[in-house]
């Protein structure tokens, strides 16, 4: 099929990608990821001591993820502070990153991941996961694999990746995944929509393909930072 999308992309094309590592000096690791008009930044602090002490886990680190949207990131202002939506996204984000980490290496500590959506135009949770994964790597925390994330759907009979703008209304489903390409395991999978099992499988397969593209971009961004550090 050769349907053109509202922004001229083919169905398997991801929006223009920009990734930059090390954008927040104070953080132990940080990154900015933009996909078209969606921009996420992530900061990692830790592993650091966890207070109060009764929250410490004796044999592993606690991973904490907080996803939030800047009030000016959307068409209508978002109220600051946690919402039910942001709480759920924080939870699934944590669960999508945790399998990549060796938390058992840092008993009694906390690793804190803060994600801020600066601009939102669909795909904020996936952009946030991409940024957070880079930030963890930038923090020098050993990982099984980078976690990479994108959403897919099916529009007018065609599996379509990285939905944006009005495509979220036209698609049969909105299906974000997070994926560790080297290990071939899925760490995030959600779906809203209405489609047969067969199509769900097809959509997941396309999303995995998209993740592999983003994976290469993530590695480039890390190399660029490391190269720069090497020069310094």
């Amino acid at each position, binding site marked *: 099929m050769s349907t053109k999308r509202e922004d001229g992309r083919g169905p398997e094309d991801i929006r223009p990608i920009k990734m930059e590592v090390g954008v927040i000096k104070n953080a132990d690791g940080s990154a900015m990821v933009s996909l078209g008009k969606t921009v996420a930044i992530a900061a990692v602090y830790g592993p650091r001591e966890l207070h109060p002490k009764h929250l410490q886990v004796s044999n592993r680190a606690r991973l904490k993820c907080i996803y939030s949207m800047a009030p000016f990131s959307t068409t209508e202002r978002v109220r600051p502070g946690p919402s039910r939506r942001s709480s759920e996204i924080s*939870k*699934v984000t944590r669960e999508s990153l945790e399998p990549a980490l060796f938390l058992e290496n840092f008993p009694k500590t906390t690793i804190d991941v803060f994600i801020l959506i600066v601009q939102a135009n669909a795909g904020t949770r996936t952009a946030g996961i991409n940024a957070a994964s880079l930030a963890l790597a930038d923090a020098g925390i050993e990982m099984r694999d980078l976690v990479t994330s994108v959403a897919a759907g099916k529009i007018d009979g065609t599996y379509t990746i990285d939905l944006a703008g009005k495509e979220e209304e036209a698609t049969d489903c909105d299906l974000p995944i997070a994926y560790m390409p080297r290990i071939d395991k*899925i760490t995030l999978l*959600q*779906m*809203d929509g*209405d*489609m047969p099992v067969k199509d769900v499988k097809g959509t*997941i397969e396309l999303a995995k393909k998209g993740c592999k593209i983003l994976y290469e971009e993530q590695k480039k961004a890390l190399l660029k930072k490391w190269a720069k550090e090497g020069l310094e």
Partner: protein
Amino acid sequence: MNVQDQYIINLIQKAHRIDGRGLEDFRKVTLEKNPIGQAEGSALVQIGNTKVVVGVKMGVGTPFPDTPKEGILICNAELSPLASPNFELGPPGEESIELARIIDRGIRESKAIDVEKLCITEGEKVWMVFVDIYPINHQGNLIDASGLAAASALANAKMPKLEGDKLIYDEKKTPLPLKELPIPVTFAQIKDHLVVDPSLEEERAMNGRITVSTKENGNVCAIQKGGDAMTMANIEKALDMSVKKGKDLRKLV
């Protein structure tokens, strides 16, 4: 990892479960319709020792500006410390928010409620449907118990009468305009095996969880993965099995 977790994992590798069930077996499921007199609709679901009450209440409110002709659905789950030593007092945490949102999305995405029929005056007044989920005893798989109870509570709900601005709760006749019965089915990945309807003990030992909500025609309307990393094989298995299991559970509603 404690001894029980290890035991469950050892068993599963021989395709055995701690309570003797087959990998694809639910615990005993019972459903009581409309146990709560004051609710517009309600259900008490028991899956093994897990017990969840869901009540549906209706009110009148203002529609959202972007959907002026549509009624409003609000799902809420309270993980009261009454139901488990692991639940704590306080405002809803991640776990209860996720539970409510999974049930909410199943109903919303399957278009179970005909929300346009819940419009009273466009842009001004619409029906609000509150689905409140109250676990009474938590022994694993709250999602499926809640989803089944919610479907039943909605299916058996009767709307109060609206006279002018006043709601007459004594005269409930008209059923809720319902088009679909979405049923969530939850699987745990233990080691690399997939089991349906995990018990609390299995939830502790699992390394991945996936819930698939399906419609009567077998279409998937919502998915939520939780926990650790899953293989594509297990995800596909869960997708396939959810349709069949969903059909079985839907018969109880």
